[in-house]
């Protein structure tokens, strides 16, 4: 796996980790119980995908998935600002979910064509789960497509979704990432490096 491929996988892994974290913030407070379960499960899947991607890169770099996920400073993350936003509104959350799945489908399709069998294999595996995320996103899109609040959120967030497919638009972070990082890495930082969990 060359440096460029590693970089691309890190971008996707960071997107999935941070979005999974953000989506999990709806656990317990989603609009209805059934959706709570479904959306929490999606959040968990995204974090699982991040883990699998980190593991692939970690092997190439002689490190571990945990170190890649938690032992970097916030400015070293390669996620797109769209996934960092702390959205407190369900319509906005679904708008982001829809835009993310749309872009994610495109980049997974490319990864599945990779000449590296490990990358192509993992992309195929991830895509099988993402298919359910897309069904979920589409179903909500169909339900909210005539709601002005949703349409407005979709239009406002759409420009930010472009960075998902463009490495050149990454690197800048929102202030919200620093807060998320603080919370996400708190437990790990409370223990000396090398602690076995």
């Amino acid at each position, binding site marked *: 796996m060359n440096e460029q491929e590693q970089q691309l996988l890190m971008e996707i892994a960071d997107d999935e980790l941070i979005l999974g974290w953000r989506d999990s913030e709806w656990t317990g407070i989603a609009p*209805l*119980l*059934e*959706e709570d*379960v*479904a959306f929490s*499960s999606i959040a968990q899947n995204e974090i699982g995908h991040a883990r699998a991607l980190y593991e692939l890169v970690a092997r190439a770099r002689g490190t571990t998935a945990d170190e890649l996920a938690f032992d970097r400073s916030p400015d070293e993350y390669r996620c797109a600002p769209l996934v960092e936003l702390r959205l407190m509104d369900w319509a906005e959350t679904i708008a982001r979910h829809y835009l993310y799945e749309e872009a994610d489908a495109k980049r997974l399709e490319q990864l599945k064509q990779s000449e590296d069998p490990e990358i192509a294999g993992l992309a195929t595996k991830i895509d099988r789960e993402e298919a*359910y995320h897309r*069904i*979920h996103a589409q*179903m909500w899109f*169909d*339900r909210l497509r005539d709601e002005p609040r949703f349409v407005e959120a979709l239009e406002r967030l759409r420009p930010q979704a472009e960075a998902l497919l463009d490495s050149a638009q990454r690197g800048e972070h929102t202030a919200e990432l620093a807060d998320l990082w603080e919370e996400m890495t708190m437990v790990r930082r409370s223990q000396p490096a090398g602690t076995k969990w």
Partner: protein
Amino acid sequence: MIYEVFRQERKGQPLQHAGSVEAANDHFADVYAREQYGRRGESTALWIVPRSAVIAIDEFVDELNRNYHRVDGYPLKEKLKEARERAGTAAAHGDR
């Protein structure tokens, strides 16, 4: 809307009531039922039925008191016990 969910645990087995999901429409019901009753490989099939489609009966009136149609009130257990005792006594008599 409330949907009742039935699940089949293994092929060939009857579908049994698993629970219900609240969903805005059939599509949501499909996704939520899969999530709650099918995601961990615990089901081979699901039936999802709007509760409004269920014909529910919970009253059984027996106007003419035809209780001979019913299976209760016939203490088979007692009768069996009595029969066993008689047979035991008979066997004991036979031994002698």
